Structures are given as structure tokens and as C-alpha cells.
């Protein structure tokens, strides 16, 4: 059937479009989460294009302006707003929209870096622990248990003491817990796959250990890898925001959602949008990633699919 599809693909364009549509419909893609995630990624990549305002530019004359998109319709006569700041400004007169867009970049950047390091380290260790077993496995898993169970906040604090606050600090703190999640899940999968007959068959045929890992084990954990990754992104973004909020990450004034919430905290009663908007952004993005991850798990997990 796949062959038939590819033939018609090259033949006629409208058919191609229609087929794409039926294909995605069959996958039942979760459209809203996908749209949100795409928006986030676009904001992160094209921040300069989307807004010409510098997120760090202080302008005390335009401080504390309420979001135009709301005040235009609900604001009283005394409402102070301007369409040049659609989402208002903060206490220093910095543009909220531009700060939110640049905040998206911070979130994506930090979680991407931390997650990819965590993924590479965790997957490698998980593969080795699962395939080698014995003391290697015991050692890796003891460390993973400790890293998983241990409160991230304590880890982050120790790192802050060691290195001082900064972006690297957040990345490290996140990495130190995330790798363990990957290692654990991957190792569990490897342990199960290692016992399957096709691996024994490969051994009987004389296939070498690294070829067995590359050809027989790794391709069978790719699904798990994708599923954990998509489920972890949300948690990593949340963690990053919490650490930023506590001032353990980027210096104050930088455009990060957690910092923005913290800056609005003391003036929440008058300038409510300062905390509300970035917090909403975090919630929506994390929700989107969670739903997307659930969808990935439901469609990709072969254990669920076989049932």
C-alpha cells in the first residue's frame, strides 16, 4: 500500500495534498497542542522578526501600561494603554509582548540544551547498563535512583553555591535529573529487548555486540526515546521557570518567563498582568507538550498498540 501512495504522490499534485490530509487524519494529530508548540518554536527562532522592540529597553515614561487587547474593551476611562504595547508594559516600561516572545526563546533554548544532553547521556548509560548488566547496571542505576529521587532544588542550590547564578546553572541542574529518567526507561526497555529471541538469534549468527546494539536494540528503543522526550519537555520548561523564579538562573531583568512572574509578584494587585501573562504562557506551553506527549505515547508505544 505504501508503494501505491508514493507513486500517486509524484504523479498528481492535488492527490498529494489530499493524501497528506487523509494521512494526518488517520494519525489523529492533536491539532491544538501542535499549533501551540509550533507557535512557541517560531517565537524562539524568529524573535527578532516578530518584534522590533528590545525586551530589555527601559522606558519609565511608558511604565505600567495595561494590555491594550483587554483595556480597549473592558478598561475604564482612566485605563492607561496604547496599541504600541498590545500586552502592556512592566514597572520599568519594558514591552510585555516582546519580553514574552524572547522568554519563549529562553525556555526553548534551555530546555533544548538540557534535554539533549540529558538524552544523550541517559540513553548511552541506559543502553550500556541494560546490555552489559551486572555491576555496571547496578552502579548506573544506583546513581540514577539518587538523581531521580533527589529534590532538584537542592541540586540547583549546590550548583549555585559552586558556580553562582546563571544559565549554565539551570542547564546543569536540569540535566542532572533528566538523564536519570532517560537512563531508567531506556535501560528497562533494553533489559526486555535483550531477552527477546531475535537478539539471541543474532548472537547465534555471530553478530558482534556493537552491531546487535546498533541494529537490533537501538531501533527498538527509538519510540520510547521519542515518547519520553516529548513527555519531558513540559517538565523541563516548568523546572526552568521555577529556578528562574527563585533567582537561581538568569540575572534579573533578562527575558525569561519565570523571572517575569517573579518581577510581578510584589505589585500583583496593581499591575496584575505582569505575573499573569508569563504564567499563562508557561501553563499553556506545558499543557500542549503534555498532550502531545500523551498522544505520542498512545500512537507509538508498541505495547499499547499490540493490545
Amino acid at each position: 500500500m505504501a508503494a501505491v501512495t508514493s507513486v500517486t504522490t509524484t504523479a498528481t499534485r492535488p492527490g498529494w495534498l489530499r493524501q497528506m490530509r487523509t494521512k494526518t487524519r488517520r494519525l489523529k494529530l492533536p491539532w491544538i497542542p501542535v499549533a501551540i508548540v509550533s507557535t512557541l518554536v517560531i517565537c524562539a527562532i524568529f524573535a527578532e522578526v516578530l518584534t522590533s522592540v528590545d525586551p530589555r529597553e527601559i522606558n519609565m515614561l511608558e511604565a505600567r501600561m495595561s494590555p491594550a487587547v483587554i483595556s480597549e474593551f473592558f478598561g475604564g476611562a482612566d485605563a492607561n494603554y496604547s496599541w504600541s504595547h498590545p500586552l502592556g508594559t512592566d514597572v520599568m516600561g519594558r514591552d510585555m509582548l516582546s519580553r514574552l516572545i524572547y522568554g519563549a526563546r529562553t525556555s526553548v533554548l534551555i530546555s533544548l540544551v538540557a534535554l539533549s544532553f540529558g538524552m544523550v547521556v541517559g540513553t548511552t548509560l541506559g543502553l550500556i547498563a541494560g546490555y552489559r548488566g551486572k555491576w555496571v547496571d547496578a552502579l548506573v542505576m544506583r546513581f540514577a535512583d539518587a538523581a531521580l529521587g533527589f529534590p532538584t532544588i537542592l541540586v540547583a542550590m549546590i550548583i549555585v553555591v559552586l558556580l553562582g547564578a546563571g544559565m549554565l546553572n539551570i542547564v546543569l541542574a536540569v540535566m542532572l535529573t533528566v538523564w536519570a529518567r532517560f537512563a531508567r526507561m531506556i535501560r528497562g526497555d533494553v533489559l526486555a529487548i535483550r531477552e527477546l529471541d531475535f537478539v539471541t538469534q543474532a548472537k547465534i549468527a555471530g553478530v558482534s555486540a556493537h552491531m546487535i546494539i546498533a541494529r537490533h536494540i537501538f531501533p527498538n528503543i527509538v519510540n520510547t526515546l521519542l515518547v519520553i522526550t516529548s513527555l519531558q519537555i513540559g517538565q523541563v520548561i516548568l523546572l526552568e521557570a521555577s529556578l528562574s523564579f527563585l533567582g537561581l538562573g538568569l540575572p534579573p531583568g533578562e527575558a525569561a518567563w519565570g523571572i517575569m512572574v517573579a518581577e510581578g509578584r510584589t505589585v500583583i494587585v496593581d499591575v496584575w498582568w505582569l505575573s499573569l501573562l508569563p504564567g499563562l504562557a508557561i501553563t499553556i506551553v506545558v499543557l500542549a507538550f503534555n498532550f502531545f506527549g500523551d498522544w505520542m505515547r498512545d500512537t507509538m508505544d508498541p505495547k499499547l498498540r499490540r493490545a
Partner: protein
Amino acid sequence: MQRYILFRGIQALFTLWILSLAIFLSVHLTGDPAQYLLGSEAGRTEYEQLKKNLGLDRPLYIQYIDFMGDVVRADFGKSHILGRSAREVLMERFPATLQLASAAFLIALVVGIPLGIVSAVKRDTPIDMFAKFFAVLGIATPGFWIAIMLILLFGAILGWLPTFGRGGLDHFVLPSFVLGWAAMAGMVRLGRSSMLEVLDSEYVKFARVKGLSERLVIFKHALKNAIIPLLTFSGLTLAGLLNGSVAVEVVFAWPGIGRLMLQGIQTRDFPIVQATVLAAGLFYILTALLVDILYAYVNPKIRYE
């Protein structure tokens, strides 16, 4: 069983030791405590003298042995900001955190587990939908933000509840709810999935085959099995509670060790940092150990090993 507990105990001690080592190294590798204590204007002789007094001129391993001795005696030195013994401050603040965390944990257990179980038993009904929605929100919303929003709503706008500090029972409502929500959400999700799995098992099918009432099937046969994974999870939840409690204590101005810890870091008050991080670590490790023992007790496979 005893062997299992012994094993977990040794593991807990090991984790604690790693933690203490990490703290020792991070404090001793980052700059010079003596420098911080004196400030930049101090003279050279004064500095050397202090170093000698603090024992900082000796080899690292001797300092470490000393440090371990202090840790065992729970003597973390004097906070140079508060001017009091770090242990004293810690003991003063610790109950506040303990109370808050217990309240949150209780909410998570009392609301989370039943909701998850009911959600599985009444699958695809409005109750289930509500539980799933409630859970997914709890996992996705940042606690510090919910805290601020609740202060805005219940404190500033409605004026129903106090929004900062410790006091009567009403002071507990907002902080413990915020702190407990994420843990509760996890319990709902796990409770639901583990109950669904148990309800699908052969022994539940057999319990029905032999004509047991639905009440016995669910409360006796399914529940106990479904709760076993929840117990393990509740151990992990504690880590989450400690994570969250720092932010919640900061937002609600709760005088606990979370806020103390953050202040210690911000002011480079090392005795306080050491005391709070070790205390939090010890608290976490002990509760995790307790949960493990409880788990072994509920699960006969381990109990009779």
C-alpha cells in the same frame, strides 16, 4: 524483610554521605569562606589569623574529617548574617516547613488517591473527565504562579484568606493547596492507571466469577494492589514537595527552611546553607526510607523474601 530494610538503610546512608560530600566540596571549592566572612577591607594578618582559627589552613581531608564530625553532631557553625547558631535557626524554622509539607502531603493523599480510584472505576463518566482535567492542570501549572494568582483572587480581590505568614488554620489553606496540587495530580494519574490495570487482571475477573459483591471486588481485591505503586510514588512526591516548598514559602512569606535556604544562598551564608540543605536531604531520605519499608510491608512478595 530485615535484609531488605538493612539494604535500603545502607543505601540511604550512602546517599546522605554523597550529599554531605557535595556540600563540603561546593563550599570549599568556591572561593574562600574566610574572605566572605571578613569582607574585602580586611588586612592580610587578620585574614591569616581567621583562616587559622577556622582551620582552613589545614589539608582538605583533615578539614573534611572535621566537617563530618560537625555534621554528626549537627553543629554547622554560626550564621554570620543572623549572628546565631545555624542549628538554632534551623530548629526554629523546621516545624513550619514540616507542618506545611505534611498538610500538602495529606491533601495529596486524601484527595488524590480517592479521586484517581473513582476516576478509574467510573471510567469515561463526568467524574473521570473532571479528575483527568484537574490532574493535567496540576501537572502543567507552575506552583509559584498559581500561588500568586490565588493571592490576587482570595487575598486582594475577595479578601477571604490571609496571604502571608504563619498563623491560624486559615493560613494553611492557600499554601498547602498550592503545594499539594502537583503531588495530588500525580496521584490521580497514577492511581487511575494502576487501578485500571488491576481491574483488568485475572484475579479481579476471578473474584467476580466466584460471585463476590462489587464492593468487595473493588475495595478488597483491587484497591490494595492498586495502592502499591502509589506508595512508591508518594516517596517521589516528597522530593516534589521539597522542590515546590521553596517557591511556596517565598511567595506566602512562610517562615520555613525553604525560604531560609534561599536567603542563605543569596547572602552566601554558608552555615545556613549547609544546615538547611543537609536537613532537607535528611528529611527527604528518611521519609523515602519509611515509604520503602511501608511498601515492603504491604507487598508480601518482598515481606517473605
